[in-house]
C-alpha cells in the first residue's frame, strides 16, 4: 500500500504520537522551527512582519510544487516548467501591452501554461516508451525557444500598464495576497490527493503502473490530467511572478524546475513514484523560503544558499539508507 509518509526514519508502528514525531513531516516541522531560531539569531530584522513582506518574490514558484508533487507521485518527472513560466509570462506581457484588459492578461497567462502542459501530457501518453525526462527536455528547449523568438533580439519585455499587477501584489492585513492563493491551492490539492478517487489513483499508478492498469485505472488519462494541471499552475506562477517583476526576459524562470523538484524531494516525495504527501512538500518549501529570507537579510553571499539547499537535499535522501544500515547492524548484533 502506498505509504502515508514519504520518508520513514523510524521503524516504530504507524500510529501513536511517537511515530508522528518521528515521521519525516514531524522532522520537517522541527527543521522549520530550527530555521526560525537560526534566522532570528543571525539577523536582527528577522521577524514576522519582515518575513511576510519579503515573502512574495519567493512564493510564485511554490504554486508549481503541488502539480509537481502529483507528477512525481505518478513516477514521472517534468523539467519543462521553468520554460512554461517564461513563455506564459512573456505572452501575458505582450497581451497586456497590446491593450488587453487585465482579466484577459491573466487568462492568457493561465491559458498558455495549460496549453503547454497539455502538449507535455499529449507527448507523454503518445510516446509512452520514452522516459518523460527526455520528452520534457525537448519541450523545455522548445517552450523557451518560442519565448526567445517572440522576444526577438532585445530579449526582454516589460508590462506598460501595471495597475492590475499592483492589485495582485497587494496585502490583506500583514499577509501578502499571494500567500492566500498558495494556501488555497494547497488545500485544494490536499483534498484532491487524499480524499478523491483521482488522487488515490495517482498513488496506485505510482506504486505499480501495470497493476493499476489491470485494476481498471485509466493510467494515461491520469497522466495527461496531471501534466495539464502542472502546466496550468506554471501559468499561475507566471502571473504572480509578473506581479513582483512587472516584466519577463529570456531567462525568466530558468532553474525553477529543479528548485521545485528539490522542494518536493526534500519534503519526502520519492521520484520513483507512489510515495510522499503534500504536507511534507509544503513545509519543506517554507523551510527553504525562510532560509533564503534570513540569508538575504544578512546580505550573506546569496549563493551560499545553493550549497545549503544541496546539502539538505542529499542528507535527506540519504537518511533512509543510513537508518536502514544502522538497523541492520543492530539486528546482526
Amino acid at each position: 500500500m502506498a505509504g502515508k509518509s514519504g520518508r520513514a526514519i523510524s521503524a516504530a508502528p504507524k500510529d501513536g504520537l511517537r511515530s508522528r514525531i518521528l515521521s519525516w513531516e514531524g522532522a520537517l516541522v522541527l527543521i522549520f522551527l530550527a530555521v526560525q531560531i537560526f534566522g532570528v539569531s543571525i539577523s536582527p530584522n528577522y521577524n514576522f512582519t519582515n518575513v511576510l513582506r519579503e515573502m512574495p518574490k519567493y512564493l510564485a514558484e511554490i504554486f508549481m510544487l503541488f502539480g509537481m508533487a502529483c507528477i512525481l507521485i505518478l513516477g514521472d518527472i517534468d523539467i519543462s516548467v521553468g520554460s512554461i513560466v517564461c513563455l506564459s509570462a512573456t505572452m501575458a506581457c505582450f497581451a497586456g501591452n497590446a491593450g488587453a484588459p487585465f482579466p484577459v492578461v491573466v487568462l492568457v497567462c493561465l491559458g498558455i501554461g495549460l496549453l503547454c502542459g497539455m502538449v507535455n501530457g499529449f507527448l507523454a501518453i503518445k510516446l509512452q516508451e520514452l522516459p518523460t525526462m527526455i520528452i520534457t527536455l525537448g519541450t523545455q528547449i522548445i517552450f523557451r525557444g518560442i519565448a526567445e523568438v517572440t522576444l526577438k533580439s532585445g530579449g526582454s519585455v516589460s508590462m506598460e500598464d501595471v495597475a492590475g499587477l499592483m492589485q495582485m501584489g497587494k496585502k490583506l492585513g500583514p499577509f501578502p495576497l499571494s500567500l492566500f492563493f498558495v494556501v488555497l491551492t494547497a488545500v485544494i490539492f490536499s483534498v484532491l490527493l487524499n480524499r478523491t478517487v483521482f488522487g488515490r489513483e495517482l498513488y496506485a499508478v505510482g506504486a505499480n503502473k501495470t497493476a493499476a492498469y489491470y485494476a481498471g485505472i485509466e493510467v494515461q488519462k491520469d497522466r495527461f490530467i496531471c501534466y495539464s494541471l502542472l502546466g496550468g499552475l506554471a501559468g499561475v506562477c507566471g502571473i504572480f511572478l509578473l506581479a513582483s517583476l512587472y516584466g519577463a526576459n529570456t531567462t525568466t524562470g530558468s532553474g525553477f524546475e529543479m528548485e521545485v523538484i528539490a522542494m518536493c524531494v526534500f519534503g519526502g516525495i520519492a521520484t520513483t513514484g507512489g510515495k510522499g504527501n503534500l504536507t511534507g512538500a509544503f513545509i519543506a518549501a517554507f523551510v527553504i523560503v525562510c532560509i533564503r529570507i534570513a540569508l538575504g537579510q544578512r546580505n550573506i553571499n546569496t549563493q551560499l544558499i545553493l550549497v545549503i539547499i544541496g546539502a539538505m537535499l542529499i542528507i535527506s535522501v540519504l537518511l533512509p539508507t543510513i537508518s536502514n544500515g544502522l538497523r541492520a547492524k543492530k539486528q546482526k548484533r
Partner: protein
Amino acid sequence: MNKKSFWKKITDSRDASLVLVLIVLLAVIEILSPSFLSFNNVRQIFLNNALTLLMALGMLCVMLTGGIDISITSILAFAGMTVGLLQKYDVLHNTLLLFVIGAAIGLCCGMLNGIVIAKGKVAPIICTMGFMYIWRGMAYVISNNAWASGKDVSGFSDFGKDGAAGPYLILLAAYILFFIVMRWTRFGRRFYAVGSNKEAARISGINVARTIAAAYAVMGLLAGISGALSVSIYASAQPNMQYGKEMDVIAACVIGGISMNGGRGSVAGTFLGAMIIAIIAKALPLVGIDAITQNLVKGIIILAVVSLNVFTQRAINRQNLGRREI
C-alpha cells in the same frame, strides 16, 4: 554481399543512419551556403563545441549504466573557477599542472556523486541535483564575487585560444581512448553489462556498485578537464560559466542514440549526436534563418529524433511479432 543486405545493415545500425543524416544535412547546407565546409568553419565548430563533445563521453558512461548526471556544469564551474583563481592570485601558472588540478577536482566531485548513488541508493537525478547546487554554490563562494579575466589567465589561455592545437588534441585523444576502452576493454564493457541487466551483471561477478560509481567518476574527471579547458578557451573564469548547458550534453547523447534506460549507446553515436546539434546551430544563420530560432529548432530536432526512434522500434516489434505467428 548483395545490395539489399548492405541497405539493411545501414538501417539496422543506428550509428550508420546517423552518419547518413549527417551527410544529407551537410550536403543541403553546402548547397545553400557553399563556404560552409571550409577548414576555418569546421575548426570553429569543433572549438565552440569542445566542452559539449568532451563531456558527452562521460555522459555516455553514466547513461549506459541507466543513470543521469545534471551536476556536470557545476563541477565544471567549480574546477574552472579554482583553476582561474589559482592564476589570478599568482599561485600557479603551469598549464599542465593546472589541467591536472582541474581534473583532480572533477574526479573527486564525480566520485562523491558515484558513492552517494551506488552506496546510498539515491536516485541519480536527485543526487546530482543536490551536488549541482553544492558545486555551483561553492564556485560562487570561492570566487567571492571576483572573476578571473583574460589578463589573469594570459599564459594559460595560449593553450586553448583560437588557432592553437590544444583543444583539438584533447578531443582527439579522448575520443580515441574512449573508442578503444568502450569497445575492447573489460572496464568499458562492464558499463554495458550493468546497464543492460543489473542482476545478470551481478551474478556473473561484476561489482555493480563499483561500476556505477566508476561511471560518475569518469564523468566528473571529464567535467573537471572541461572546466580547465573552458577557462583556457574563453580566457576567463566566472562562477556562472556554462550554466544550464548540462541539458545540451544530455540532448547530444539522446540524439546520438544512447538509451536513457541504459545499456545502449556508442562513442561514435555520441560524437554524431553532438555534431548534428553543433552543425545545425552553426548553419542556421548561414542559410538565412535567424539565429534566435536556434533553441526552438534544437528542441524540435530532439523530439523528432526520439519519437522517430519510438516509431521504428514499434514497427520492428510488430514485424517480429508477425514473424513469430508464422
